[in-house]
């Protein structure tokens, strides 16, 4: 009995370990390449650990000889801007869909579900034309606007709010809170795990997004990290894979740090255990 338990544990850990290695390998490869001297990247002799530490010059090239710092700042502005507006609208909408009784509620929720099925590529062309007509191309607004309303966020928060006890809402109404105050003072704090999970989804998606910036951004001043890496590869340093990987490492670092910081809340949020 005990032997089988041990064997089972070993086996499952071996499978998990293999999965982890498979997942982590590209990241490790990126980090190793980012500190490899250029002659070694395409060298005939392969060393797992670089013979000479070239991290300093690679990262220097990535940060100084490219548009990356500006793009990182732009990326942060865009991602946080999108997230702020998304939460501002999705949380009250989700609360209304979950807890308020009004005509057409089920119908509206059906539309939300329908919206979940529509990828960004579908409305991309009309959105582009609209932004072009309004003369808003190549702006922060153009980068952010299509993502302000998030049906995914509404859906996630609605599921979360549904488990919020009705009696607490009644108590709040009796104490004199209006619905908006209930949303921000009671429902939102209880939904913090869901908000954390959603924030990570949202930031990762828009930080890594290449499709939409490629369409609406033309100038270097409005470039975002994914565009910057693309431009970096095309430009004069094109052959410098060490520097390119350094740029990639810099770009992914905020996400990885963010994930580890909010890991617990993230897991709690997606496993959907309600308040209390």
């Amino acid at each position, binding site marked *: 009995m005990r032997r089988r338990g041990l064997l089972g544990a070993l086996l499952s850990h071996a499978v998990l370990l293999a999965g982890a290695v498979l997942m982590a390998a590209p990241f490790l490869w990126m980090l190793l390449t980012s500190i490899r001297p250029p002659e070694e990247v395409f060298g005939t002799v392969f060393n797992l650990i670089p013979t000479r530490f070239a991290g300093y010059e690679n990262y220097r090239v990535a940060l100084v000889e490219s548009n990356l710092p500006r793009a990182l700042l732009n990326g942060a502005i865009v991602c946080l801007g999108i997230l702020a507006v998304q939460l501002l609208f999705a949380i009250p909408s989700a609360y209304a869909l979950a807890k308020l009784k009004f005509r057409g509620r089920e119908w509206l929720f059906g539309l939300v579900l329908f919206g979940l099925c529509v990828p960004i590529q579908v409305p991309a062309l009309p959105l582009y034309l609209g932004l072009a007509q309004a003369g808003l191309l190549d702006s922060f607004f153009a980068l952010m606007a299509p993502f302000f309303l998030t049906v995914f966020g509404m859906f996630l928060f609605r599921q979360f709010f549904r488990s919020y*006890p009705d*009696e*607490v809402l*009644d*108590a*709040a*109404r*009796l*104490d*004199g*809170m209006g619905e908006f*105050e209930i949303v921000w003072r*009671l429902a939102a*704090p*209880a939904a913090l795990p869901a908000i954390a999970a959603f924030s990570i989804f949202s930031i990762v998606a828009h930080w890594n997004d290449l499709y939409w910036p490629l369409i609406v951004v033309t100038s270097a001043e409005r470039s975002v990290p994914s565009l910057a890496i693309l431009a970096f590869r095309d430009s004069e340093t094109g052959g410098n894979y060490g520097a390119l990987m350094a740029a990639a490492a810099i770009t992914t670092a905020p996400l990885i740090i963010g994930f580890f910081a909010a890991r617990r809340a993230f897991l709690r949020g997606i496993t959907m255990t309600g*308040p*209390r």
Partner: protein
Amino acid sequence: MPTNRRPPAGITLRGIVKRYGPATVLDGIDLDIAPGEFLTLVGPSGCGKSTLLRTIAGFEPQDEGQVRIGDRVVDRLPPAERDVAMVFQSYALYPHMTVAGNIATPLEMRRLSLAERLPLLRLASPRRPRIRREIMAEVEAVARQLDILPLLARKPAQLSGGQRQRVALGRAMVRDPAAFLMDEPLSNLDARLRVQMRTELAELHKRLGATFVYVTHDQVEAMTMSDRVALMEAGRILQLGTPAALYDTPASISVARFIGSPPINLLPAEARADGAIMTEGLRLHAHGALPAGRVTLGLRPEALELAPPETPGTLPVSLRRAENLGAEWLLHAVTPGGTDLVARVPATAPVPERFSLAIDPARLHLFGADGQRLVTRLGLRVPA
């Protein structure tokens, strides 16, 4: 606690009707609750008692009828403006606020403006610190009354059920409301705590002198705490009266069945045109006119007494089970006609193996075929 508390308000309900789709949940409720009264709405689940309470609170506006609290008609007022406080079954505390924050919330909502409640912006208000101090003083006074002063900094999740209950009471008391509405506040507590809180609630009511409207499905709570009890069934009030009135003169079989533990014994009987009532070989007679036909006799368990076997004018029964409650026995027996009876007799002597049950005719209840009480005195004719 403010020393100059306002006088309690009465509540008047006139013709309250509430429908959910085709179902009528409240079917014309008329009720006058006196100022300072402890009135209990009791009934089986689904009888509409909670809906009635929520109608008074304003959560579920009635379809017809009028609600009056004090001298105000409140039909069009939202819950917050009806000046009532409510204690919920689940306590409904704000989970991420401390106990102090929970109790302070109703006062903050009233005395601070929206801007003074907003994060950051509130720091700009010069009068806010003073108001906060006043509020906290009142919160502490209420907490002291309820014996929860040491818990003020805790979160609800760190409290036991009884402590949460007190916090919920504190949040209601701090408002000094015109009336307290309580929706099964004790049903989430364990049995021992429930008995203790029953006493405390009754004492609290006496001390505050406030109007309490209390909803429960537990007839013991209704009987032990209330000034008056309204027994509801299927959206109507079957009987309204003091606990003693409901127990001693139930208006119908439904009321008689619901009130009392163990429940009343019901014996099918036959009324004859000459005023005789026959049941289980016994012959009773009514003083006064009685329509002939099927009737039902109600006997409280304590209205039965042990008698030697085969005494004339008693019920010959066979014992099924005897429960020892310490001071008394509960005897579960069955009549020759197949009706189950429960008798409550003093535990002075061991239960005899064979016995009869004697009936005190003065304590019999008589119900007609429609289940309504027949007002008549009964006598027992013992064959010579």
